[in-house]
């Protein structure tokens, strides 16, 4: 939309002049925002990052317990399993136990992600005759027609799936929150459109709270490169509503059921 952008700039200038005048500054004042945005991490932020790095196995177990306690009241199912094979078996069991919400076809959509690949779901679910759709990154982003077709195809498959399996970037123990960041091959719809969302994480991905998360995303060498990405979502339990006589119902629009598998091995 290059056409409208010139108008936008003119509007923006007027808008800012009005704000500056209202704040008692000269309308043309150049305000650089010095001191508003920290250029270096605070001691507190560094301590938070350091705390995550130095976390012992025992502390991690305690965080897992905290996560489980926080998950219970919001109906997030959390299960610790020793390895990828056990998670795959758990998902296969789930697939057998649950029927599709729309139609009769059982289909599962899964992210392209190293941890999910380790589960080898196409084999685990293939054994029980359930197709697994892996969401590949767009192969030729520069070709508009081909990429549109790829997107449409993928979207159709995700909409047709009743379970979506994703990894996660982090889990926040205090609020039982699954944190997903945006990457190619890991579409957000997999955690949104299917009736059941299954997330798989490893024990070391559990951190305490938003404070730790934000400190890591901003200041930790390993995480700050990607930062928040263009679309980050926090998911704390299944979708819910209380809009009819304040009675709580799960599955207003998002998944009705959310399960979190934690690989401990």
């Amino acid at each position, binding site marked *: *939309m290059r056409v*409208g*952008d010139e108008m*936008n700039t003119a*509007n*923006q200038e007027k*808008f*800012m002049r*009005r*704000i*500056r005048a*209202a704040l008692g500054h000269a309308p043309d004042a150049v305000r*650089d*925002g010095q001191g*508003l*945005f920290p250029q270096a991490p605070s001691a507190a932020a560094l301590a938070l990052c350091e705390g995550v790095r130095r976390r012992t196995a025992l502390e991690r177990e305690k965080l897992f317990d905290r996560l489980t306690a926080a998950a219970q009241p*919001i109906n997030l199912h959390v299960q610790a399993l020793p390895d990828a094979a056990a998670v795959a078996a758990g998902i296969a069991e789930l697939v057998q136990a649950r029927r599709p919400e729309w139609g009769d076809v059982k289909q599962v959509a899964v992210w392209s992600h190293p941890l999910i690949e380790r589960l080898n779901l196409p084999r685990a679910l293939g054994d029980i005759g359930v197709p697994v759709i892996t*969401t*590949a*990154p*767009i192969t030729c*982003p520069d070709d508009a027609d081909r*990429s549109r077709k790829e*997107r449409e195809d993928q*979207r159709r498959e995700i*909409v047709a799936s009743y379970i979506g399996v994703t990894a996660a970037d982090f889990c926040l123990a*205090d609020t039982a*929150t699954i944190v997903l960041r*945006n990457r*190619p091959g890991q*579409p*957000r*719809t997999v955690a*949104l459109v299917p009736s059941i969302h299954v997330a798989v994480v490893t024990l070391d991905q559990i951190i305490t709270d*938003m404070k730790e998360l*934000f*400190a890591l*995303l*901003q200041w930790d060498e390993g995480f700050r490169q990607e930062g*928040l990405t*263009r*679309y*980050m*979502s*926090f998911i*704390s339990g*299944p*979708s*819910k*509503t*209380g*809009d*009819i*006589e*304040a009675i709580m*119902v799960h599955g*207003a*629009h*998002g*998944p009705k059921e959310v399960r979190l598998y934690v690989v401990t091995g």
Partner: protein
Amino acid sequence: MSDITTERYVAEAKKGIADPVLQKALVFLQDRYGRGAAEAYRRLPEGPELRLTAHAIREKAIENLDVLLETLAAKIRGNGGHVYFAETAQEAVDYCLAVARRNHVRRVVKGKSMVTEEIGLNPALEAAGIEVIETDLGEYIIQLAGETPSHIIAPAIHKTRHEIADLFVQKLGIRRTTHPPELTQAARQALREKFLTADMGTSGCNQACAETGHITTVSNEGNIRMATTMPRVHVAFMGMERIVARLDEYEIILRLLCRGAAAQNIGVYVSYIGGPRRPEDSDGPEEFHLVVLDNGRSRMLADPQFREMLCCIRCAACLNACPVYGKIGGHAYGFAYSGPVGAVVTPLLTGINRAKDLCLGETLCGACMDNCSVNINIPRMLLALREKLAYGDAAWQVVPVSRAECLAYRAWSWLIRNRRLYEIGLKLAAVGQRFLPQVNGMIRRLPPPMQGWTLSRDLHPLAAESFMEKWRKGM
């Protein structure tokens, strides 16, 4: 601009008080969320004082609004998003219509947002021949019924399951059921179809973070995630004040927002949106637009008496604590914002004289401030509005509500400063009061124009001998 019915405050309030369904719902809401928020503040590791920290964060953001908004806009544009700054509601609506036209939009799914109510987006889109669907379950019910929301976070709280059942039978063609999970499922199915076929999704913005360049949306249902993920185009609207500088500040605001709104530690979904999808992403909107709205806010910003109101994060905790809202409900306020926040914001945005009854109706008890997630001194601003209504104010184009009342109080003020005349007045009144109806030695009714004073209480008659007279006689 959407229909503003704020002039009908008194009549609508009476209707609200007479509605037994609404009365029951209000008691429940205030009991659960009003008290719930207060308890949630107490349980914070930092304690309820975190609200004061949040107030300081919001104040700092407001004082640097130009810098923060420019930083946010630059980051979003860097990601390929568009940012439009709208001075008026009309400009914001026109921009959205232009985007819709360019994209041949026929169907819009809306994530709940107060600011789109404020600018009257729905009627404008509909007038352009575009189908608009509210997707928050409560808002959807209200839209099907052709009504307006009665509460910021629980818009359909005034409707019973029986009314909703009838509505769904009529509008969605379902088999009649009054079971809330089945009703929810019916709406889920109807709306899923809309999400998958809409060309444009709209949302508000709960709070933006300038430093990272994200807007964020919070929801429990997942409708906002759907509306901002499935359609090709996402247009987000934010009041220009809904921004903080840094991520660590944002963290504090988010925690308080969820506690204030619904006594939750966190909403089910919090989404951070920094632009449209990238070419290699397989989902998310192709186009992302952010519309930043002034619509009278810069006027509040310029007035030191009302600047504090821009700290508001629209959590609705004040509604859940207010004894007036708790009786009259949200419709009486006649604009997008109800309760104590509405009593301050509506006059400032739509005209102080026009919305005069809103601030006169509040009790000044301070419950709103105590329950406010960012500790805004709403009673102070209600008083400031009342002062303008009493004496007039050129800057805000306020004319005194009653010149007679203004004059009467001036006369009274002069009288009590002239002892002799005052005593003569007392003597006359002592004679006059004999002609008023009395019960058990109390005056039952005052004559017009003072009859309001004795509407719900009796008045002590003037003593035969005043205190001063006794004093002079040596008691």
